[in-house]
């Protein structure tokens, strides 16, 4: 059955809450309002306000409270309405959630998920459009996920909620209205497994979240150019599926890495290293990286459109690499 990415997220929350009474949803306006993007719509009516908990605008405290109830065995799913605002949750997430399992020598665990919409493309400008996932990738103890389609969003979110470790779950605003086949009921996408969204033989485009959608669009255009591009959708950023990356690049012998985040100091550098370390000897040309321009996201629609990679820029870069 076709469902939007947004409905898939709601479905996942519904499945998880239905099967485990320890799962609660917390965040600003998650109740009757249905969440900042509409992902929690209908849940409070089904599960009551004791499990769909509206919070004041106090991201630090309610995320810290989520850490506390997770330490006790509950499974809070926290919604932070824009991933930019996870700066306010940095202390409970980075210093507490990510550390307690280790600091307690394994006696404690923090089974919590932070769900948060990321990315540009909606005119929300500099404080509501960032790709901050980079900042969480350098924190051992955290799992970082970023699905690109509805099927993965549901299966990965269910896996995230069932995991005993803290998870940063980045949803993309541009993906919310996109539809794909989503089965009814619970199913799980394994954490740490990339997915090849389109097979190809000339180049591997490695990306995640909405950039995988742009890469798929580019791959379709490249077919017209006689170029066969493979799209590797990472889905799980940490842990990272280096094996799928290595196998794909081993076959195609070219790699383009596409992120919405600016490349400097970011995850694309890590991905480039992985390609060189695992498949470097097979490369026919140097790895290229495409990322957002080194600037905050602009409000102006034309500037915003130019500063983030899109299908045409990906197509152009691939053609340069094959020329």
């Amino acid at each position, binding site marked *: 059955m076709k469902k939007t990415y947004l409905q898939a997220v709601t479905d996942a929350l519904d499945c998880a809450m239905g099967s485990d009474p320890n799962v*609660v949803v917390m965040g600003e306006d998650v109740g009757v309002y249905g969440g900042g993007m509409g992902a929690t719509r209908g849940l409070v009516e089904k599960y009551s306000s*004791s499990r769909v908990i509206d*919070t*004041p605008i*106090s991201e*630090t*405290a*309610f*995320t*810290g*409270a*989520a*850490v*506390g*109830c*997770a*330490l*006790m*065995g*509950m499974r*809070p799913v926290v919604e932070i309405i824009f991933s930019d605002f996870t700066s306010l949750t940095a*202390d*409970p997430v980075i*210093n*507490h959630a990510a*550390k*307690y*399992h*280790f*600091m*307690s*020598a*394994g*006696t*404690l*665990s923090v089974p919590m998920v932070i769900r948060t919409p990321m990315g540009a493309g909606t005119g929300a400008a500099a404080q509501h459009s960032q790709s901050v996932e980079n900042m969480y990738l350098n924190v*051992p*103890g955290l*799992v970082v996920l970023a699905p690109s389609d509805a099927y993965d969003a549901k299966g990965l979110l269910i*896996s995230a909620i*069932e*995991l*005993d*470790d803290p998870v940063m779950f980045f949803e993309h605003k541009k993906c919310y209205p996109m539809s794909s086949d989503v089965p009814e009921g619970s199913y799980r996408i394994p954490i740490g497994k990339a997915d090849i969204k389109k097979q190809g033989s000339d180049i591997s485009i490695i990306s995640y979240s909405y950039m995988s959608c742009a890469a798929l669009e580019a791959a379709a255009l490249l077919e017209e150019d006689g170029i066969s591009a493979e799209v590797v959708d990472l889905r799980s950023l940490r842990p990272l599926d280096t094996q799928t990356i290595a196998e794909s690049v081993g076959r195609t012998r070219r790699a383009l890495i596409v992120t919405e985040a600016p490349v400097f100091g970011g995850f694309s550098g890590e991905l480039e290293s992985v390609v060189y370390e695992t498949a470097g000897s097979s490369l026919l040309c140097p790895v290229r990286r495409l990322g957002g321009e080194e600037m905050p996201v602009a409000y102006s629609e034309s500037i915003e459109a130019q500063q983030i990679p899109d299908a045409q820029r990906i197509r152009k870069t691939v053609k340069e690499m094959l020329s």
Partner: protein
Amino acid sequence: MDHFSRLEGTVRTRQLRNMLIIRKCEETIDRLNTENAFHGTNHLCMGQEASCVGAVLALGDEDWIISNHRGHGFYLARCSYDVNRLLAEMFGLREGACMGLGGSMHISDADRHYLCSTGVVAGGVPISVGVAMDLKYHSLPGIAVSTFGDGASNQGMALESLNLASLWEVPVLFYCENNRYAVSSPSERFVANTTIWERAAGFGIRSMKVDGNDLPAVYNAVSQAREYITTERRPCFIEAETYRFNGHSRSDKLLYRSPQDEEPHRNADPILRYLDYLKNESLADDALMDQYSREAQQLVQEALGFCEASSGPLTLEEALSLVRSGVSR
């Protein structure tokens, strides 16, 4: 209500011994610090023994403590005065409370409901609200107790947490030990309106101040707060006024206060005050004090022997296996 005087005499005298165990333990750590015996820093609670011993005595087994960086006293009081596991942790040994991975600031012992402690000032306050949420959600008995200092009372997350706890009506005791200094910053210069307990009242939380160096008073205040929290299912706030005998941490040279400043506080040593109380109650004398001091010192000596006999720290591989649980359920 004077709950304390209703306790058995043996229970009351034992608290003198308990305070002395903490004192001797901290004195030993202080001495070992001068020999650089520990790899990392630590934050001693000498001078605050009545505050932690009195508070923990008033708690039940079903209650949960969420502590902070100055947590040795609360750890010992909650965890059967297990000096062995505290010192082993500080030496980074596998016999430590957290197998040497947490260290002095990050000790946890969930089995004994010393859930966790944090090295981030005020970091445990929102966590305690979450623990109380869990207790309420599952209709479990018990309360969450967050211990923090005057410095933490200035953190936004502490004040946000008071708001949450009041709104959500969760069973949590905010226990603020005002030891007069946040690192080197005296409360009168860094806490606007130094009556911290009144801040909680602004959130509709019942709050009170207690002389944190008077063990019976601390016990009575926490007992009363606990009774209120468990019957009304509302949060409560206590500000316990005390004094930090040592510097903030082992590197503190105490440039911001003089021995003259310290003298009146040292003269009001909570252990000596409690000895006076016991003498007045005909429950102790100087000979018993000497005996308890020797026993406490002996316990610490034995703990040092326990550490010497340790099988050492975890291996890197063992530590790496503890970064994430990786378990799904």
